[in-house]
């Protein structure tokens, strides 16, 4: 059974080819729209709209949510939201064509499912906070910033990966 599934799964693309194609897409994005690719910004829009709808009283207390009340149209009508919809479609298409659509939890061999999921939530929360301070995540700040030679992009990238390498040893049981 296991073997049969593995046979149908196509191998991943050569990383250098994937990187080259991704770089070309990023360059075209800048050429057409004047801005780069991103991801966390769309989630920010979703959070702002959700909080604004469900708990307007909470939202009014912090200027972070003011876009919900002041904008001419919904924060969901933004470039990044449409781009992220595209990412979801593109990711699904790729997974479908390569036979990788399966429900599963990826984790290190020594970790229980529940541990992996708890750490995923914690890691996601940290990425949520970090991406707000860094004004973008690995895509919007680091990768897009690198493409236009921005100091902020290189600095954020070095901080992300530098920290990763420094602390990797302490969390090795999660992955190896």
């Amino acid at each position, binding site marked *: 059974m296991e073997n049969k599934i593995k046979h149908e799964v196509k191998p991943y693309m050569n990383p250098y080819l994937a990187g080259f194609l991704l770089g*070309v897409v990023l360059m075209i994005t800048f050429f057409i729209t004047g801005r780069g690719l991103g991801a966390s910004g769309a989630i920010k829009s979703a959070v702002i709209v959700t909080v604004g709808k469900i708990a307007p009283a909470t939202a009014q207390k912090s200027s972070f949510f003011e876009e919900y009340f002041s904008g001419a149209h919904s924060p969901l009508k933004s470039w990044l939201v449409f781009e992220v919809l595209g990412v979801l479609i593109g990711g699904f298409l790729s997974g479908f064509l390569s036979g990788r659509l399966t429900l599963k939890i990826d984790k290190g061999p020594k970790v229980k499912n529940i541990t992996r999921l708890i750490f995923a939530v914690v890691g996601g929360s940290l990425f949520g906070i970090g991406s707000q301070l860094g004004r973008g995540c690995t895509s919007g700040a680091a990768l897009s910033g690198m493409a236009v030679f921005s100091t902020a992009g290189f600095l954020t990238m070095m901080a992300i990966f530098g920290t990763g390498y420094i602390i990797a040893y302490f969390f090795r049981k999660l992955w190896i």
Partner: protein
Amino acid sequence: MGPLIPQDIINGDLNFFFALILGIAFGFILEQAGFSSSRKLAGVFYGYDFVVLKVFFTAGVTAATGLFFLKYLGWVNFDLLYINPLYLWSAIIGGIIMGFGFILGGFCPGTSLTAAVIGKIDAWFFIIGMFLGIFVFGVFYPFFKPLHMGSFLGSPFIYDTLGISQKWFLFWLIVIAVIAFMVTQLIEDNSTKFKELHNTQKLSLKYPVLFLFILACIALWLPQQRLSFANEKTKEVMTKVILSDKRYINTEKVAYNIINNQKDLYLIDVRSVQEYNDFHLPGANNIPLNDILNPSSLKNLVQKDKSTVLYSNSSVNADMAWFLITRYGFDNIYVLNGGLNKFYNDIFLEKKTHEGNSVEAVSEARFIKEARTFFKEGRANNESSVEKSIPKPTDAPLKAVKGGC
């Protein structure tokens, strides 16, 4: 030429369409590269799989090199690109927190989306975490704000920060990338862990390295960077457009536009900030003549579906501003003929006589009268109360506006 949408070369309404298409390409490539697996992503920190470094570095170098060449050829104007602003400590601390997030969560935001959509349950939880994190940041924003908005250093370029030229920076970036590829390949080959994750198409390292090396050499051997702006007009073209008076737009058209609350014109006041604050036409934006070629100003010179009209007290300063930005490469920029002085004379003083009884003359006189009441009664500042009954000035003014030189 580029970027296309900020300069209105492609209609801005298509922006969301491009967002979707480019997003699909982005997501497809991320998933194809294996970024939908947290184990492969985490491998970069433990030496068993360097797919993150390979893809990320190749993409960054490719895009940076491509934009470098597009800029050199004058095909893309860097002044109009979004360059990430640098808030020093916010960027560093944000990056450190994201580093923790990466190790603990095994994803970054973009990769978690492609993983979630193909059924990775750990990615769903990561995304829930991101919602929580951003929510917490939002609720406690007053606490984060001093850090978030502090130590602002503009939007510097890395080569300026390091004090080297752009092409040398690009060269060293490529050299570092190539070394990183070779070293990590060695580490990966010697790692015995998790070979099953390396279900990847094989391709010799030779080709990417050779390709990058050629790019680096071309970048270094390029002759001196051209100094012209992206769309700079030639002297001959400028001579022609200066002699033409098509750039002038008359008082009535501008007044008509303001009164009827039509959004066809985008007014820019090129006088000083103080003069602007004392008085300006309703809806006008202020960009003083001296600042007109600043990157921040250039981004505000055109608005979607509108014709830009520059004005000053007379036509002189507006004409100078018009010259600078037209030479720089903008088209369809207009100048309010006679400036505010003529505007004031035409609308407020009853000097203008209308000879003849032709339909045009009568309706123009009636329009001026209406406009006078409008501006005098201060309704200009209260856009909602504008009445639709105000007659049009002679000839259809807006067609002429859109024609352009």
